[in-house]
């Protein structure tokens, strides 16, 4: 384990190969490297990427994945939309949205801390969130529309770069620093690589789970808020493919599902890789189905190759 932590080379082989394939694809695709095209696929990657950085911490801590990301993000988006619709101060709306998502994440954290499989806990909680939000929104007609007063700048650009991409970059850097440098980040990695070792060295697994889910809540809240702000509305079915997209980004980025290896930065790179592949296929006029097929195939390939590499080195 220690060797792998010091030389993460093995776990980077596959993302490297995928990057190479991508580079070949990009060079042979006319119009890929134009400024507007790069911006457009980075924009497509940003919400998935933001949520993937939080989810990757859950994976690194040894708790596999969350199957409730869409619902958590949607909760944030709908709450922000409702508060903007009622013309609350922007800060209040954002705080309410993100705090609520953190709160529902903490409920899931408690369930995982008492020993529930994270996949089942998040699947069940996600449905409950969906049911509750649908109930409240349906009362008002299903879709919450608003005019983004005071938050219009999110859809604009700063220094020539779209703000959404800047937020994506900021979240990635912050998550990366917390994971690499902060005490809790190191503990998350240790808990993922060996629960027994973590417990022996006095790491509280409960705290690890708690902080992981806080990170999950913050990123889901930010992702949901952005999802609502880009289209000026929110519905219970918004960002409908987010859960599986995030899982794909985390795994294709090369975050080890056994826990203990990988980083939020890799998950963000995974999201960008998928968006770039989709973009190349789009430029070659492939259908949406073919894009999804490729993502699924890439994901299976990554999981299988990483598993085999790990088994050989072990």
């Amino acid at each position, binding site marked *: 384990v220690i060797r792998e932590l010091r030389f993460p080379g093995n776990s980077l082989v596959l993302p490297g190969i995928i990057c190479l394939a991508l580079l070949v694809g990009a060079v042979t695709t006319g119009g890929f490297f134009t400024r507007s095209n790069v911006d457009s696929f980075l924009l497509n990657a940003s919400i998935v990427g933001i949520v993937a950085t939080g989810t990757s911490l859950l994976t690194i801590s040894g708790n*596999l*994945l969350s*199957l409730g990301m869409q619902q958590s993000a949607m909760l944030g988006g709908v709450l922000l939309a409702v508060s903007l619709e009622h013309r609350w101060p922007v800060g209040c709306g954002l705080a309410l949205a993100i705090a609520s998502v953190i709160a529902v994440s903490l409920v899931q954290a408690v*369930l*995982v801390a*008492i*020993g*529930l*499989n994270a*996949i*089942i*806990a998040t*699947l*069940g*909680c*996600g*449905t*409950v969130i*969906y*049911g*509750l939000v*649908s*109930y409240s929104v*349906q009362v008002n007609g299903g879709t919450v529309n608003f005019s983004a007063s005071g938050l219009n700048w999110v859809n604009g650009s700063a220094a020539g770069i779209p703000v959404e991409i800047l937020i994506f970059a900021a979240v990635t850097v912050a998550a990366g620093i917390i994971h690499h440098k902060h005490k809790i980040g190191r503990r998350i990695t240790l808990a993922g690589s060996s629960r027994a070792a973590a417990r022996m060295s006095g790491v509280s697994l409960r705290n690890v789970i708690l902080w992981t889910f806080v990170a999950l809540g913050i990123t889901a809240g930010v992702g949901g808020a952005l999802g609502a702000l880009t289209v000026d509305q929110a519905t*219970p*079915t918004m960002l*409908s493919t987010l859960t*599986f997209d995030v*899982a*794909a980004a985390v*795994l294709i980025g090369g975050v080890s*599902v056994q826990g203990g290896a990988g980083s939020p930065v890799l998950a963000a790179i995974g999201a960008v890789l998928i968006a770039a592949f989709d973009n190349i296929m789009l430029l070659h006029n492939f*259908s*949406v*189905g*073919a*894009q*999804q*097929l*490729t*993502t*699924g*195939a890439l*994901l*299976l390939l990554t*999981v*299988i190759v990483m*598993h*085999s590499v790990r*088994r050989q080195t072990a």
Partner: protein
Amino acid sequence: MRNARVIQQYGAQVLVFAAAWLGFAAAAPGLRGSAGVYSVLLGFPLVGLVALGAAGTIIAGEMDLSVGASAAVAGAIAVRCAGLGLVVAIIVPVVILGAFGAIQGIVIAWLKINSLLITIGTSIFLGGVLFEVCGGNPISVSNAAVTFPLLDRWWIFSPDIIIAIVVFAAAAVFYSRVRYGREIYATGGARAEAIAAGVRTRRAIIVTFTVSAALAALAGSIAALKVGGADPTADTTLLLEAMSAVFVGGISLYGGRGTVGNVVLGVGILSVIAAGLSDKGAQEYAVQLVTGLILIAVVTFEVLARKLATRAAWSADGLLGGRKSRAPSL
């Protein structure tokens, strides 16, 4: 002794089932008489068959998250094949998805890879396949007359309910009497011991994933033919409902325990609740809300009960004073 075991295995579920039905029958007239039995039985051809397949993978100590996507793809293939006749339209997707499930099982069994991850990957992959089969838009059966036999109803029975009953009966025999079925229990209950005892655990895993995909395909194709169409973007909650039915029925999350009877009870309980709520005019999301709550409650209960049991065992041994032991999480 035997009676005690039967009560332990089914008692709580039978009570919940009876209480739910009595409660809803009192409040919702749609749940009384043969109409009520019929609406509860209607839960078996779709959620029931998918849950039955998923239960096999869970008993084997694995978990198939691709059942929802398999059912959706099968539905689209069935609609495309409807011109060839009803029987062909049901059999073709079952064979195709069964083969897909077998490949999935082979990968999981030989590489000893986490089945949750492989099946998340195949779910995304199958989502793309669904899109391609439909050509990007909702499709419908070209000749609706082909599907009319599925809409027949005799008293509390319809063709799809009869198919479901036959499949459940066959599964009951398979799991309790056939060696392949017994191997699945050994594989999930204690894998290391099973391998040491010469049980062919790989075969058991491949069999469960094949059966799981084939049953999901059967359920999906019947459902799609019944409504006469398939939609590539349909937001399906089948996976959640099937998993909830499995765990509510009393199949253990830790593998190796549970029977077809447990699946029947789980599907029955959820079906009563869904039928009762929709009879009272509740929306789809209310049913989902209740299903999600029941799933969390049941799984939490099982985890806590197991924790208490391990704790008692530890303290009986005088180790760690019964404080530090933890139930293993899956």
